[in-house]
């Protein structure tokens, strides 16, 4: 019986060395890479997301956890995971809207979604509505995440949603938005499916939205 709880606790502490050795022991015991990933690492990052949302954990700690998780995946698990072993929780297109170059919060959301098992396509910042549309089509995405940090670029979120509708893709993707000046009210006004105030709540929202 593998001690997933120990892996989870160690991930939450962000202790990379210890996490690597625990994962190695688990592999030595014959536990599959898939199980370590899902029941250990992803389960741990779920808790990290919740703690972040509750302001029990903060960005530097979350980054430390993500770094530890990535080290285990890249050094130990990747060669052992077969294609199709892990089914993505959903496909996400994420980017900061046209005219806006802020990407710190957006990158955090991308990283957290990825560690929660989503297949994430991070387009970057200053993304034209047509680019989002093209990527949604190309990747057959389930969720579109948009960020805006300026009151002057917030309206681009609506423009992008309209472009997605015009392309006939609005029924295919759920739209999540975030960024300092953005609010739940604004999300409702522009016809987005949800608003998240931080990376932790973005994960919860993305999971919840996939069930709708």
């Amino acid at each position, binding site marked *: 019986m593998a001690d997933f709880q120990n892996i989870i606790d160690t991930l939450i502490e962000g202790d990379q060395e210890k996490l690597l050795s625990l994962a190695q022991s688990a592999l030595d015991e014959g536990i599959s890479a898939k199980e370590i990933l899902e029941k250990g690492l992803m389960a741990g990052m779920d808790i990290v997301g919740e703690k972040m949302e509750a302001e029990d954990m*903060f*960005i530097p700690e979350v*980054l430390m956890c993500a770094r530890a998780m990535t080290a285990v995946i890249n050094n130990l698990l990747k060669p052992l995971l077969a294609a199709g072993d892990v089914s993505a929780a959903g496909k996400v297109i994420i980017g900061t809207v046209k005219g806006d170059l*802020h990407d*710190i919060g957006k990158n955090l959301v991308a990283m957290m979604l990825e560690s929660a098992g989503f297949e994430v396509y991070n387009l970057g910042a200053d993304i034209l509505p047509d680019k989002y549309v093209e990527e949604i089509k190309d990747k057959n995405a389930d969720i579109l995440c948009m960020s805006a940090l300026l009151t002057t670029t917030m309206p681009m979120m609506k423009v992008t949603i309209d472009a997605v509708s015009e392309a006939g893709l609005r029924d295919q993707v759920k739209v999540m938005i975030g960024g300092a000046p953005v609010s739940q009210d604004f999300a409702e006004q522009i016809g987005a499916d949800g608003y998240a105030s931080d990376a932790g709540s973005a994960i919860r929202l993305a999971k919840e939205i996939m069930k709708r």
Partner: protein
Amino acid sequence: MFIVVGERINTSRKKVQEAVANKDIQYIKDDVTRQQAAGAHYIDVNAGARIGHEKEDMEWLLKIIQETVTIPLCLDSPDPEILEMAYGMVKDRPMINSISLEKERYEAMAPFLKGKDCNVVALCMDDTGMPKNFEDVIERAKRLVKGLEDIAIDRESIFIDPLIQPISVDTSKGIMAIDSVSGIMKELPGVHTICGLSNISYGLPQRKIINRTFLSLLMYAGLDAAIIDPLDDKIMAALKTTEMLMGNDDYCVKYLKGVRAGQIVF
């Protein structure tokens, strides 16, 4: 003298937005009166948050604020048309917030600024995004100063903002900002440096202690202006105390006056 730009009149703040929406003249008057009393040298006015209402909101705010305070204003908008109107309304030489190296913004702002008598906040932002390192900031600051001097804005009227980035994401960002301020002040003599501080503490708890400690470090590096909340007693106390410690307060007079007036609190 360290220049304090009071950041409170911004319609993205809930109470200000309500006051503007309800035409609550007294709320705005009280707020700016208190900012001036607390030691603000400029009142920043940003009316951008009620989308589609920026022009009327700016006009309304400027009219009230001008009747109320005797300090100049910092006109905060990316829209040259609104700035043109605002510039025409103010009595005293204003500060314009802001120009950057982003192509669209630069091309909109430069013709407006040409020949105007004003101070200018110039952001070290270009089309590739935030500056990545110290060298980036210095190179951008030089481009901004050159561009502004070419349209007859003299160096003493330029306030370079090196753009503070969150230390929670990258622990080298504090030193990068400190080095950037001292680099700009050394390599572009005569120019001012300004910044909003709160980005430094994004993603961390107890943000105010981070912001005000960082202000002291930046002041030592040469920062001579900041966009802050003058009604935050503690940051104003840190500011006055730092000025005193740096030898900019003869016989500690301002510090002692501040203590007696109950303004220096910890």
